[in-house]
C-alpha cells in the first residue's frame, strides 16, 4: 500500500516518529506521478526540485522540534493552475498565459509554505476555471481515474484526480459555480467550497471575483478540514476576506449528527436526477437519519432562475477580469501586429479558447449600455432572491443536503457540443456561490461503478456543520478508501 493512501493525521504522526522522512514520502509521490499521471493528465507541471527542497526543509523541522512542527509539515500537496506560485509558471490552463511566471505567490500558497508543506506542482483545469469537465483546458485532458473514457469534472479536475489517484495528499482548487464540488463528486474525493470571504483570493487568477473561492480537495473530510484551517482567515491583501473563528472545522468534526436538522430542497430533486444518483442520495439520507439526524423538506423556489442569473453575472465579471490579458505584459503577445487594435485582437484571438471567448462576449453584452438593466442588474436581483431562499431555509435547518450533481461523470466529448447542457451540470452547486455560503461534497457511494457525491450546504460561515455531517457520512459510507483502477501503481 502506498503511503499516499494514508490520511494526513496518520502520515504526520509517522513522519514525526521517523518511520520515514518527508523526502521519502515526496519521492514516492513524485514516482507515482511519473508512472500514473501520463494516463490521467492531472499535472500541467511537476516541480521535483522545489518539492524535494521543501521536503528536506520539512525533515529538518520535524527532526529539530517534532512536537511543535505543524501537522501539514512535510505533506505533499499541489495547486490548481489558477493559483499563482512565485517562480513557477502559472497558466490558468490558457495559452494567453503560456510562459507567465508570477513574481509572487498567492496568500494560500504562502500560508501553506510557512507550515512546511511540500509543493509537487501545478494541476490542470478548464481555461480560467471556466468549464465543468476539464475539456476546456488548452493544454491537456484530465481523465477520470475510475474510467478514463469519462471526464474528471471541472474546473478543478486536475485537483480532484491528483487526490483520487493518490498522487498528492491534498490539493487546492477553486470553486465559482461548483468547480471544487463537482470534480470531487465525479472523482470520489472530498471537496470544500468555503463561504465567500473565508479564504483569501489574493493570487487566485480571477474568473468571477464575486463568486470565486479557493478550497481544499482531499481524501477525507478531516484532511479537507485540516487544509481549510490552514488557509482560512482574513488577509490584508484581500478586502473581501472576513475575520471569523476557524476552530470549529476540526473542533466540531466528531460531534455527530444526532438532533441535527437537515433540509432536503424539493427543487433540487426535480432537476432530472440520474436514477443511480438518486439511489445513492436516498441511501445517504437513510444513513444520516440512522445516526440521529432529523431530515425535512425545504424549498428554494428561486433555484430555476439561479443558473440564468449565474450565466449573466459570472460572464460580466469575466469580461472585465480578463481584459488584462492583452498580450502586452505576458503571454505569447502579438508578433507582427501593426496597429494597437490588431495587437489586441491577435493576442486575444490566439490566446483564448472558444468557451472563454463565448463568456467574454456574453459578459460584454450584458454590461453594455441599454442592456445593463435588463441583464446585469436583473441578475443581481435574482442573486439577492437566491440568498434569501437560503436564509429562510437555514432558519429551519442546520444544513441542506442534496446530490452534488444530477449525474455521475459523463463521457469525454458528450457535452462539448452543447454549452447549455454543460452549464446545467452545475445546477445544484452554483446557487451556493450566488449566495456566498459554504458547501462540501463528500463521497457517498457509487452508481454503475462511478463515484457519486453528497453535497452538504451550510449557512454563511457554516463550514463546521458541513464537515460534521460529512464526517458522519464518511464513517458509514466506507467509500473514501476505495482506490480507483487508474490509481494502482505497478511499482
Amino acid at each position, binding site marked *: 500500500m502506498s503511503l499516499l493512501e494514508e490520511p494526513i493525521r496518520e502520515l504526520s504522526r509517522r513522519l514525526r516518529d521517523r518511520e520515514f522522512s518527508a523526502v521519502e514520502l515526496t519521492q514516492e509521490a513524485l514516482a507515482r506521478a511519473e508512472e500514473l499521471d501520463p494516463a490521467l493528465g492531472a499535472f500541467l507541471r511537476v516541480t521535483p526540485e522545489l518539492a524535494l527542497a521543501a521536503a528536506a526543509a520539512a525533515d529538518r523541522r520535524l527532526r529539530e522540534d517534532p512536537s511543535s512542527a505543524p501537522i501539514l509539515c512535510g505533506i505533499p500537496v499541489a495547486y490548481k493552475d*489558477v*493559483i*499563482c506560485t512565485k517562480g513557477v509558471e*502559472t497558466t*490558468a490552463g490558457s495559452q494567453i*498565459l503560456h510562459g*507567465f511566471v*508570477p*513574481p*509572487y505567490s*498567492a496568500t494560500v500558497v504562502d500560508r501553506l509554505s510557512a507550515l512546511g508543506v511540500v509543493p509537487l506542482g501545478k494541476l490542470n483545469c478548464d481555461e480560467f476555471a471556466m468549464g465543468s469537465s476539464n475539456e476546456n483546458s488548452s493544454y491537456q485532458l484530465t481523465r477520470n481515474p475510475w474510467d478514463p473514457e469519462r471526464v474528471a469534472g471541472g474546473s478543478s479536475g486536475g485537483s480532484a484526480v491528483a487526490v483520487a489517484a493518490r498522487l498528492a495528499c491534498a490539493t487546492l482548487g477553486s470553486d465559482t459555480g461548483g468547480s471544487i464540488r463537482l470534480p470531487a463528486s465525479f472523482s470520489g474525493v472530498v471537496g470544500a467550497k468555503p463561504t465567500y470571504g473565508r479564504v483569501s*483570493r*489574493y*493570487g*487566485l*487568477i*480571477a474568473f*468571477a*471575483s*464575486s463568486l470565486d473561492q479557493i478550497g481544499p480537495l482531499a481524501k477525507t473530510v478531516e484532511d479537507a478540514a485540516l487544509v481549510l484551517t490552514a488557509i482560512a482567515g482574513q488577509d*490584508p*491583501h*484581500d*478586502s*473581501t476576506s472576513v475575520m471569523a473563528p476557524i476552530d470549529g472545522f476540526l473542533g466540531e468534526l466528531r460531534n455527530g449528527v444526532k438532533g441535527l436538522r437537515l433540509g432536503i430542497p424539493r427543487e433540487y430533486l426535480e432537476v432530472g436526477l440520474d436514477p443511480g444518483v438518486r439511489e445513492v442520495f436516498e441511501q445517504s439520507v437513510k444513513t444520516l437519519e440512522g445516526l440521529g439526524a432529523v431530515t425535512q423538506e425545504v424549498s428554494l423556489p428561486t433555484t430555476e432562475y439561479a443558473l440564468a442569473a449565474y450565466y449573466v453575472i459570472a460572464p*460580466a*465579471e469575466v*469580461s*472585465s477580469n*480578463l*481584459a*488584462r*490579458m*492583452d498580450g*502586452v*505584459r*505576458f503571454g505569447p503577445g502579438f508578433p507582427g501586429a501593426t496597429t*494597437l487594435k490588431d495587437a*489586441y485582437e491577435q493576442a486575444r484571438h490566439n490566446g483564448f479558447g472558444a468557451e472563454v471567448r463565448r463568456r467574454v462576449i456574453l459578459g*460584454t453584452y450584458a*454590461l*453594455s*449600455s441599454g442592456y*445593463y438593466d435588463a441583464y*446585469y442588474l436583473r441578475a443581481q436581483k435574482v442573486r439577492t432572491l437566491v440568498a434569501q431562499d437560503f436564509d429562510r431555509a437555514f432558519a429551519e435547518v442546520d444544513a441542506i443536503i442534496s446530490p452534488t450533481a444530477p449525474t455521475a461523470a459523463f463521457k469525454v466529448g458528450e457535452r462539448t457540443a452543447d454549452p447549455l447542457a454543460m452549464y446545467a451540470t452545475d445546477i445544484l452547486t452554483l446557487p451556493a456561490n450566488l449566495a456566498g455560503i459554504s458547501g462540501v461534497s463528500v463521497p457517498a457511494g457509487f452508481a454503475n461503478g462511478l463515484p457519486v457525491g453528497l453535497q452538504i450546504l451550510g449557512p454563511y460561515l457554516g463550514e463546521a456543520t458541513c464537515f460534521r455531517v460529512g464526517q458522519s457520512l464518511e464513517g458509514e459510507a466506507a467509500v473514501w478508501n476505495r482506490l480507483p483502477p487508474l490509481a494502482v501503481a505497478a511499482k
Partner: protein
Amino acid sequence: MSQLADSPWEAVIGLEVHAQLLTKSKMFCSCRADYLGLPPNSNTCPVCLGLPGALPVINEEGIRLTLRTALALNCEIPEFTKFDRKNYFYPDLPKGYQISQYDLPLSLNGWLEFELEGHVVRGGITRVHLEEDTGTLHHAGEIQNSAFSLVDLNRAGVPLMEIVGEPDLRSAAEARAYLAALRQLLIYIGVNDGNMDEGSLRCDANISLRPVGADALGVKVEIKNMNSFRSVLRALEYELGRQREVLDEGGKLSQETRGWSELEQRTVSQRSKEEAQEYRYFPEPDLPPLLISRAQVEEVRSGLPELPAARRERFQRHYGLADDQALLVTARPADSEYFEAVVALGVTPQLAANWQLGELQGLCNSASLPIEECRVSPAALADLLKMVQSQEVTGKVAKEVLATAFETGESAAEMVRSQGLGQVSDVEEISAMVDQALARNAKAAADYQAGNDRALQSLVGAVMGMSKGRAKAGIVQQLLRERLPRPGD
C-alpha cells in the same frame, strides 16, 4: 468675452479637474505615490502592474483627502459610496479597467466661490470622486506613426481625484479664475501640489454656446490637453470663437472631443460622439462598498485649515492690509505663514507685507525659489525689519544686506552690527560730513541759496554718499538748511 462680443450667444463652460492626491502610497497598493524621477517600471508591484490574481486594497488616506476636498468645496457626503470598474483597452491601463466611481460618488452638490475683476462668482461642483491614475506611454516619435511605444507603469494606481464642475462658467476668463481658485484651495488643504506642468493637476473643459437668455444647453464639445492656465484661457477663447463662427454662419456643431494643440494654437477634433467609448461600468467586486460615518465626516471637517477666502478677509481686517496686498500675501499657505511669523516677532504688518512682497519676493523670483525655501528665515527678516522700524538702519542699507543675506544665508541684522552699517544720527558726526560736502559743492550750495530746491537734494546725496547711506536723512537736511539760510527762511 471678446469672442462673443456683439453676438446673440452666451458661453456655457464646465471644467473637469483631475488632481493627484498627496498620499504616501498609491490608491490600491503600497507603492509610492510620488513616482517622478524613478527608473521606468521600478515603482510597481503585482497590484499596480495588473498581474493576474492581484487585488486592490483601499488607501484610507486617499478617502480622507477626498473627503477633505469635498468638504472644502461645500459638498454633501452620502453615507454609502462604492467603487466601480470603468472598462476600456489601452496599454497605459494594465488591468483593462480603471477603478473609479460611477453612480454613487464620495461626494456631490457643492460649490466654489472665486473672484474675477472685483466680483465674487460662484461655480457649482457636481461631484468629487476618487479613481486611480493610469501609467504613461512614451512614443517613438509622433503617436500616429511611431514604430513602438514604451509603457511606464510607475504612475499607474496613483490616487486621482476628479472634481466635476457644473456648466456655470460664462467666459474663458471665468474658467481660468475658477481653475486658479480651485488650485489654490487644493494646495491650501494639502491634497495636491498644483503642478500643471508635471500633470499632477489636469483640466478638461465642456464648452457650448446658447442664445443669451436661453435655458437649454447647446451642443457640447469636450476640450482636452490643456496643460497650463494660459492654454486653458487660449483654448477656450479659441473654441468660443470657432463655435460662434459655425453658428453665425448657420452651421451646426457636432458633439465631439477636441484636443488643444499648443503648437498650432487651435483645437483639433479627436473623437466624435459616434466613436464615444462604451465603458461598461459595474460595481468593483474586489472592494466592498464604503460606509462613511458622520463621525468621520465631522473629524475631517474639524481638521480643515483656514481656507484662502477666509484668510484673505482676516488679513484685511486684522492686519489692515489693502485688498491687493492681502490677495498676494495669502496666495499660498507658505506665503501667509511666512508673513504671520514675521508679524508675530513684532514687525508692523504693513512693513512686513511691503518687504515680503517687494524686496524678498523679488529676490525669490530671480532665484526661482519659493519663499519658504529661501535662506532668509522669517526670524531673520523680522530682526532686520525691527532695525528699520527703530531707525537703527536705513532702508537703503537694509535692502543691500538683505540681498547679501539671501545669497549667503548670513544674518542681515548681524551684518549691520558687525560691519558698522547702522544708521548715523550723531549730529556732530553728520555735521562734519555736511561741512565737507559744502566745501566740495560750493556751486550747489549757492544754487540752493539762490532758490533752487533741487540743489539741496544733491547736497543730501553727497552727504549720504560719504556716510555710505547710513546718515539719517532728516538730520542731514536739517543741518544743511541751518548752514545755508535763505531769505525768508
